[in-house]
């Protein structure tokens, strides 16, 4: 992309996914091209069924058993996630890439306390977390020292012990347990959950929707991932709570220095928080651009239609709809999959598939009107 090489965290190339069903094969992804740059929030937008979530699930290897990855690669810092074995991928999910889903109630275990669900992650690979946990506790102790102007004897002893342990990165069983709990509570605190010690012991049903989503984000952050896939994380939330969650996401992104792929159908959310946007339609990425560029100068007829159909809270204007509806991907349209709904369709469109090409620096579009 462009002349200046920008560092990317994730590169998805030519990803094709088919779902085998009794009724026939659903061609869900038809060669998705996508890259997430280091430190950015990339918005992945599109209507329901366009393949946004499937893309994310494929990347983290969580597709259902009836899905088949026909071709493509997903490079995380150069390593192909799709070629990994089960154990290797599990480790990658634990360390490098995390995913947060739309409906926290479905993904939180209802019979385990929030705290247990977080400490469980740590306990599965303690070696991965011990240095971080020690560092975190030492920072806490320093913070106490600063605010109280000194330390109690116990804390002084604890600090010495921890400093000794940080050389070897080994902890006794009880000590490890204690630190794990403290670390989990500090993570809960970092997602602004009120009274994190209490929340640690609570069960998901005791939390409100907004708090559950924070708990989910907390679980994703335990690992300080390089890449966070946020799949419609605010869709089930009310606007005031959504605003809190989006603000949190932006702040956390800075703190833990991660990149975010924000999957959403809400173009207003994208405009508010994303750096760049990729628009998906029927299993393809059809346009990619900087957020300002995309909203000011949308090129793909689908992007134009989508933007024109969004009702706005700041001005009263007639919304235009896109004629027709999203195609059934069991029988996707030939050529450009948007051609049956496209107002600018011409002879070439039904007969060939356009490719995603760069028409101006950083602005990619897949449409024959622009060469394709």
């Amino acid at each position, binding site marked *: 992309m462009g002349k200046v090489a920008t560092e990317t965290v994730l590169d998805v190339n030519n990803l094709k996914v088919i779902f085998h069903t009794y009724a026939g094969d659903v061609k869900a992804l038809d060669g998705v091209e996508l890259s997430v740059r280091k430190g950015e929030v990339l918005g992945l937008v599109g209507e329901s069924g366009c393949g946004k979530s499937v893309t994310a699930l494929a990347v983290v290897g969580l597709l259902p058993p009836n899905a088949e990855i026909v071709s493509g690669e997903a490079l995380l810092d150069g390593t192909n996630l799709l070629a990994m074995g089960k154990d290797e991928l599990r480790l990658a999910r634990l360390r490098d890439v995390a995913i947060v889903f739309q409906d926290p109630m479905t993904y939180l275990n209802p019979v385990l306390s929030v705290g247990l669900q977080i400490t469980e992650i740590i306990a599965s690979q303690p070696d991965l977390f011990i240095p971080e946990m020690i560092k975190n506790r030492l920072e806490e102790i320093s913070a106490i020292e600063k605010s109280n102007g000194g330390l109690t004897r116990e804390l002084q002893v604890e600090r010495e012990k921890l400093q000794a342990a940080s050389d070897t990165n080994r902890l006794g069983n009880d000590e490890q347990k204690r630190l794990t709990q403290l670390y989990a509570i500090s993570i809960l605190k970092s997602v602004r959950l009120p009274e994190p010690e209490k929340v640690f012991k609570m069960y998901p049903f005791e939390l409100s929707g907004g708090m559950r989503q924070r708990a989910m984000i907390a679980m994703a952050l335990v690992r300080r991932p390089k890449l966070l896939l946020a799949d419609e994380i605010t869709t089930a939330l*009310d*606007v005031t709570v959504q*605003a809190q969650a989006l*603000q949190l996401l932006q702040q956390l992104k800075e703190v833990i220095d991660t990149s975010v792929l924000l999957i959403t159908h809400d*173009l207003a959310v994208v405009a*508010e928080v994303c750096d760049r946007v990729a628009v998906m339609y029927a299993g393809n990425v059809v346009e990619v651009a900087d957020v*300002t560029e995309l909203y000011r100068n949308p090129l793909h007829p689908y992007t134009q239609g989508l933007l024109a*159909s969004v009702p*706005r809270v700041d001005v009263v204007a007639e*919304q235009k709809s896109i004629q027709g509806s999203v195609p059934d991907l069991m029988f996707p349209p030939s050529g450009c999959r948007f051609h049956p709904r496209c107002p600018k369709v011409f002879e070439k469109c039904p007969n060939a598939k356009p490719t995603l090409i760069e028409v101006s620096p950083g602005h990619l579009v897949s449409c024959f009107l622009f060469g394709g």
Partner: protein
Amino acid sequence: MEEGYFLQTVDLFKYFPIRGGMLSRTKAYVKAVDGVSLGVRRGETFGLVGESGCGKTTLGRTIMRLTDSSKGSISLEGEEISRVKGRNLKMVRRRMQMVFQDPYASLDPRQSVRSALVEPMKIHHTASSKSEMNRDAEELIEKVGLNPDHLARFPHEFSGGQRQRIAVAIALAVKPTFIVLDEPTSSLDVSVQAQILKLLKDIQSDMGLTYVFISHNLAVIRQMCPRTAVMYLGRIVELADTQRLFANPKHPYTRALLSSVPIPDPAKRKGLATLQGDVPSPVAIPAGCRFRPRCSYATDTCAKVHPPMVEVEKNHWVECHYNLDFAVSKI
């Protein structure tokens, strides 16, 4: 409030008892609708906006008489309907219909579109013969932008947007004068949402209908409704012309809602969060002003005294002790 409203509620309450313990005694109440007074003018689209759990759907259902109110009055074209029963209730029901949020749940999967359209005609005897019913059904299905071939099909053969068109056609089958639209586009994609909103507007001007439009989506409310009421925890906290409400909100909650909504234009980024915490439970509503625990302008008075509904400017009602000024330029 002024006289001659098409639909009016006065001090309407709906409490749901929570039973438990020995002999299933009532332990507490969910105060879903907690004293709502509003008036809807003939032919208008009256917006009802609020976050989930604020009681907007219960209010809609109570007005529809799908659930009985605990206290208070509802009048439709001057006629008290909150306690009518039996045959009289059936006559009222013919005049008002409802369109629900989820067209996947509101349509019977085993009923063909034709049968779903004809059933209310049979119940309310709005057509005299079978051929008349069929003719009406065909007219209806064309009115909502589908074609008569679709009548023989079943709901699973349609997309979400098409299903919602069918739900609208069913609501229109008995020729009502009043429709409650409960989040009619919330489960639809934006490109389809625009189609349905346009359809609803066209039908309204065609048939002279009066709408109550329930939504959590402030952008949709702005496009659809000339007047809007904002609900919070079972009460209306602000009611005004939509234009005025959005430009010059007077209640701190309305202001917070408006500034939480992202705008689909990166040039207008503003940083969103202005409210902390969640909506309190409608079982234990805070004393005094119910918004007080989340309000940054709260004083001691707010904790003790329930604020009265005041008309701060003509047709602009606010339930707040203070006449705050949040004109948009100042936010």
